[in-house]
């Protein structure tokens, strides 16, 4: 198979020596996968040929972008071929008047944002990993980010896709404009975690760049005060561009390396951004500041010049990386709850972390009700990983019991698939699987993702998840 793959794309684009495969074993999660070979296509035809070769040898195929994913989605769960999309990284067209762009999947999110900005436009989804993560991966996971509070997630910004399905067939789906007749295939593919095909081109929407922006930092002496302030801002009817919370543990990690000016002894800070026409930014900024002040902040600071704002955001977007200061490993959760439940769920998260003796750092999209508790540990310590997974299961359960879901923007992937029955019945999942089947035979295509069970998907590794589920009983919120 390797010989055939090399014949198809050249030996520079095929990686198969053990030491080179190492870097493709992981993404941003705890899980690991062991691919047999990595191939790096240069264009759509390469992708088609590579899929067909893998199919000929009945080898599993797993698409991969930058590997920044947080659900094990880019891992080769059953080995086989990883198709890395990183060489397909051209922005093919920016249509300023129609506010769209055509991009290849390997384009880095921030690069698309920068190109859009040159034309007075913006690409709205901005995951924290945007300096590295790719548009293809964003589409697979329906990625969000701080600024999706006002603008929606990736699915609200993709109009059409060129898709190579698992059988090696290529087709464009979607249209240049919205809501044209026919099923919303693009809506099905975005967020399908790379399980129904490989996106080889995307027509994305760009949005007008706001003329004015104001970012506020509010410092609080308790998480409860901060989360009550979040609820009050949401309830006020103002839709900020972003509304983020960062807690003490995160500040302790971020501040020494990034010097963002977050006070080390604060329990929580909020980052709130308003944008739009200048008059709106002035008026809404003042109203938001008034609300933030009602909850007895230590201070509320405001930044309007780009450099200052960038500095504040660096503390949020660089948070995950900075956590390495405290512990070598992290397990990042992605539960999402109705926004009024946020204060109670946060309390429960801290309680669970304490009970499992795990440091927890929280930095998350408070305005969306999307939590990112980050459990810190050292995988070399015996039993630590299991403890983290158990605590993670309990946190997900708290989110589900609050009427929420197990993942808001990271995806189910390999990591959370055992927990899907907490929110969906067998009939729900069967309907989803039949949608997958409609895209073609996918037994060997990105196996072991999203849905529980599956042969040869490392069942042993999921024992803890199973125990956890047994403890609470399945299907609590269906």
């Amino acid at each position: 198979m390797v010989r055939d793959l090399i014949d198809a794309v050249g030996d520079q684009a095929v990686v198969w020596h053990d030491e080179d495969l190492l870097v493709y074993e992981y993404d941003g999660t705890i899980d690991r996968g062991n691919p047999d070979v990595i191939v790096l296509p240069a264009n759509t035809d390469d992708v088609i040929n590579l899929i067909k070769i893998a199919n000929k040898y009945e080898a599993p195929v797993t698409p991969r972008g930058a590997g920044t994913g947080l659900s094990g989605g880019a891992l080769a769960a059953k080995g086989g071929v990883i198709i890395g999309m990183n060489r397909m990284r051209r922005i093919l067209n920016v249509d300023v008047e129609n506010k769209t762009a055509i991009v290849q999947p390997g384009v880095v999110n921030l690069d698309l944002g920068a190109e859009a900005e040159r034309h007075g436009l913006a690409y709205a989804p901005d995951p924290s990993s945007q300096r590295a993560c790719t548009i293809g991966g964003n589409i697979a996971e329906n990625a969000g980010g701080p600024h999706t509070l006002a603008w929606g997630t990736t699915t609200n910004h993709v109009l059409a896709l060129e898709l190579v399905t698992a059988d090696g067939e290529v087709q464009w789906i979607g249209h240049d404009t919205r809501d044209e007749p026919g099923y919303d295939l693009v809506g099905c593919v975005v967020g399908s975690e790379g399980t129904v095909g490989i996106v080889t081109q995307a027509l994305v929407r760009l949005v007008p760049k706001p003329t004015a922006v104001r970012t506020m930092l509010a410092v609080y002496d308790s998480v409860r005060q901060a989360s009550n302030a979040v609820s009050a801002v949401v309830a006020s009817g103002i839709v900020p561009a972003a509304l983020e919370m960062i807690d003490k543990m995160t500040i302790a990690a971020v501040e020494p390396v990034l010097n963002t000016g977050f006070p080390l002894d604060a329990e929580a800070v909020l980052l709130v951004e308003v944008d739009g026409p200048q008059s709106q930014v002035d008026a809404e900024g003042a109203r938001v500041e008034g609300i933030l002040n009602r909850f007895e902040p230590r201070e509320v600071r405001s930044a309007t010049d780009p450099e200052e704002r960038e500095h504040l955001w660096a503390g949020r977007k660089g948070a995950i990386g900075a956590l390495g200061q405290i512990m070598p490993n992290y397990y990042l959760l992605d539960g999402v709850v109705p926004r009024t439940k946020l204060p109670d769920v946060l309390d429960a998260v801290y309680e669970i972390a304490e009970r499992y003796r795990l440091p927890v750092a929280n930095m998350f999209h408070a305005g969306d009700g999307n939590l990112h508790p980050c459990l810190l540990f050292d995988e070399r310590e015996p039993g630590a990983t299991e403890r983290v997974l158990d605590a993670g299961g309990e946190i997900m359960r708290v989110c589900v019991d609050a009427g929420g879901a197990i993942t808001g923007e990271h995806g189910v992937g390999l990591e959370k698939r055992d927990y899907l029955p907490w929110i969906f019945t067998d009939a729900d999942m069967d309907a989803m699987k039949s949608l997958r089947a409609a895209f073609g035979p996918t037994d060997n295509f990105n196996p072991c993702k999203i849905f529980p069970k599956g042969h040869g998907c490392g069942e042993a590794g999921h024992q803890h998840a199973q125990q956890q589920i047994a403890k609470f009983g399945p299907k609590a919120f269906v």
Partner: protein
Amino acid sequence: MEVASSAGHSVTPLGGRTMLDLGMPPTRYDIALDLSGLTQIVDYEPNDFTITVEAGMTLADLQRHLAMNGQFLPLDHPQFERATLGGLCAVGRGGLRRNSFGGPRDWLIGMRMVKADGTAIKGGGRVVKNVSGYDLPKLFAGSLGTLGIIVELTFKLRPVPASDQIVAIAANSFDLALAAGRAASQAAPFLNGCVALSGEAAANARSHGAEILSDQPALLLRANGLESSANEVLAQALRAARQSGLDGPELRTAAIVETWQAVTDLELQTPENHVRLRLGLPPANLIQAQGVLNRRLPDATTWIAAADSGLLFLDVPGVDAETVKSLRNELGPLQGRLTIESAPIELKQACNVWGPGGSGVRLMHSIKETFDPQAILNPGRYVDGI
């Protein structure tokens, strides 16, 4: 559905019956499944800015209920007193403000459906951001009742803006109103609505309660938000419209809801013996496409265009299948998708009302076969005979 599917009867789901003209008549029509009795609110916590309702609730009832809490669902739909949420999601279209609002798919966060065989399923949830499992609500939004029966919907909501304003400017011609609309929407990208009307359309809307100065062609600009920013956006848009040569008198209406709804209702008011066409295309190609239509269909009367999102409706007293076909060829290079909305059955049968399905049609058939293997749901009504 269990009974219908085991007996092999075909089923056409019905809501407010505002869009029954849409598409081909079903090839079989045994049972009408009327969902208009499902009108309850299932769950509503205002401070979550989400609501779960049954599919038969009308858009107007929902908006009235939400207004009590200063909230609304950002969707336009003709005849909103009758149109049900299940029905408008099944149709799946954004309205004249789709440039800033998007369509039902963009506000749906959860859905319960009944499959063709009677199995109850759901997708999504009650949270505003969710990637747990496949996005079945998006599959069902815009499926026109061909995949299953929508029974319950959860939407995310928006606060009612503090200020909402409409300015209508009279124009000497529809062409001028459209060109001014293009200029305005480019100069003021945060406009909430930008609609050009022909004289017939303006007159019709006026007779149904729209506050527009006269029966002349007109451009309607809508902006909202805080008062200061709505003013700023509207001023930007007006300046650009004026600079592009629009010099008619303007009227700032107080009847915001009535005016906009009367214009939205035009979508369903095709004069007797007329054919209603709908064109969707990238907005930059709008003026060129309108030129093509104007030349090929000189008798066209009512014209309605969302100048900011590339959506155009027009009425013609008569058109033959050959003309539709050649128009589609001519509009193809402009990425225009021409569909026939309302027409005599003979014309519908003589030409493909939805237009060619495009390259995704193979997957659409595959999905239809998976979800409705007996083809009992609205058979033959949708794209490519689905």
